[in-house]
């Protein structure tokens, strides 16, 4: 019951971790306790393991309402666990209050993450974006960045860093996306917004996670990819659509210069696309090798630049992203592509496709988000 045993390698690219019986995994990602992984369940519980899947702790209560966990993050000595019902803040074991005395913020979130400067950030749908720094105590108020008007929706958030300051970008579904430099001590934030003709933006990620960069990838529900060199100032991002991307797009992730797209049908690894885009190299030709791994997944998250965890109905697949990065050719010259055909692999297909460059003109705008203090309740 208390282990996530792995198969030791059923594929050249990934190993499989099986959850304990009765633990239906809804989220998997880096452990907030340090090395290793954390798994959240549809019953609101969390389990912690080491890199090999060996049990470390749990199952522990993550959600006070026992709702499905959709995000786990750490800031300081607190762990945040998000569900559609509420955002839970738990002190780490051994700290003041102990793990059993958490605080629940009574609004649901689509996920939660933390910034390098130590803030929790959670997209709360039409309520806005939660931005708050620990500690949390009973009666603690939480800051929410809210547009205060209908027309914005926070569905996913990415944290970037520039000039020593946090920059937050958010996916706003059919309203497009927004980005702002986060000033924690200001009563309002100036948000730059862009709407791509109603393109349904469902996720985004930094192209150089953990580094000083405003490079960002945003993902449309139809699989369209929007690349920004500077999400605050880039008025002409590139919008690409790889015709081979099938299914409903769920996640976009990036590390080591590669970009991963998870859809309801497959995981797509776009080798070197992020690196070449940021370097100013052309990306709209058939120069990007695309590794296609068919699978019907639930969710995926990166664990640093080492692992990619993909939640499947009955298992969690742990991909070695360094191995994927090293094994895929990083680019193909224009001359070579004529001779290349899709290359079947024993675990997927390696394709060279010409993406469609969508000439989507973004409709730019701005909105002032007001910071409001909202009370939390004791969990």
């Amino acid at each position, binding site marked *: 019951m208390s282990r996530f045993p792995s198969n030791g390698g059923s594929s050249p690219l990934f190993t499989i971790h099986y959850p304990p019986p009765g633990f*239906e995994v809804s989220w998997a990602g880096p452990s907030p306790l340090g090395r290793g992984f954390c798994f959240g369940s549809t019953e609101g519980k969390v389990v912690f393991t080491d890199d090999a899947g060996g049990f470390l702790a749990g199952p522990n209560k993550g959600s006070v309402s026992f709702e*499905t966990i959709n995000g786990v993050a750490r800031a300081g000595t607190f762990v945040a666990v998000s569900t559609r019902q509420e955002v839970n803040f738990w002190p780490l074991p051994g700290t003041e209050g102990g793990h059993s005395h958490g605080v629940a913020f009574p609004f649901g979130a689509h996920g939660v993450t933390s910034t390098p400067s130590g803030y929790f950030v959670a997209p709360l749908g039409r309520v806005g974006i939660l931005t708050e720094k620990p500690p949390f105590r009973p009666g603690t108020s939480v800051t929410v960045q809210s547009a205060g008007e209908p027309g914005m929706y926070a569905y996913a958030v990415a944290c970037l860093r520039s000039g020593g300051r946090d920059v937050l970008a958010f996916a706003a579904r059919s309203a497009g996306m927004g980005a702002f430099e986060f000033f924690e001590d200001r009563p309002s934030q100036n948000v730059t917004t862009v709407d791509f003709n109603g393109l349904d933006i469902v996720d985004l990620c930094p192209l150089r996670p953990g580094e000083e960069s405003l490079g960002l990838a945003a993902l449309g529900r139809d699989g369209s990819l929007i690349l920004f060199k500077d999400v605050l100032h880039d008025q002409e991002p590139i919008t690409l659509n790889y015709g081979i991307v099938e299914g409903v797009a769920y996640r976009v992730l990036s590390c080591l210069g590669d970009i991963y797209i998870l859809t309801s049908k497959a995981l797509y690894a776009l080798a070197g696309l992020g690196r070449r885009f940021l370097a100013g190299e052309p990306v709209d030709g058939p120069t990007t090798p695309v590794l296609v791994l068919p699978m019907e997944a639930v969710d995926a998250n990166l664990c640093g630049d080492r692992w990619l965890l993909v939640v499947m109905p009955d298992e969690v697949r742990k991909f070695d992203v360094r191995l994927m990065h090293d094994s895929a050719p990083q680019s193909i010259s224009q001359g070579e592509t004529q001779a290349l055909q899709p290359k079947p692999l024993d675990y997927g297909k390696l394709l060279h496709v010409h993406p469609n460059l969508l000439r989507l003109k973004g409709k730019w705008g701005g909105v002032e988000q007001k910071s409001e203090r909202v009370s939390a309740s004791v969990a």
Partner: protein
Amino acid sequence: MSAAVRAEGFEVPAMTPSGQGESVYPRQTDRSNYSYMFTAKHHGGPRSRDATWSINQDDEFAVFNTADVMELADDDGNLYGALREGENSLRTLGTWGQQIAEFPCASEGAPWHGYPIWAVNDEAPPHRRGEKYRPAPVVFRRMEASGLINRNTRVRLMGGHHV
């Protein structure tokens, strides 16, 4: 303007364009013979604060009919519906990407109404008075058991994600 017409045994107003008042659909559900009313509140345009339908009235009724036929109810009798799209996706029902609709349990004989439900809880107490966010997890499991969604999509929807 609406005029009264008879629709399958009920004295109901004629269908009117959404946003111009309330009207009752001229058909009843296949299983329980429930009638269904379109409310102006939930057809208020893309920038409305209220959850707003983005599909036409025939499809809106189809969502309700599916909910009734598949008996996708919670313990309080509220119904929940969706429209399948492809193998493992659902159609978008609302202006903010909502894919599940809620139909609060109506009084005996009264027409039902419904709206696309937000994927995450956006009303703190006292508005919710301590209620858990709907639909309850058991409703998603009933949707899976009925074949409307598969296991992957159930887990995603329970997590407040799109499918």
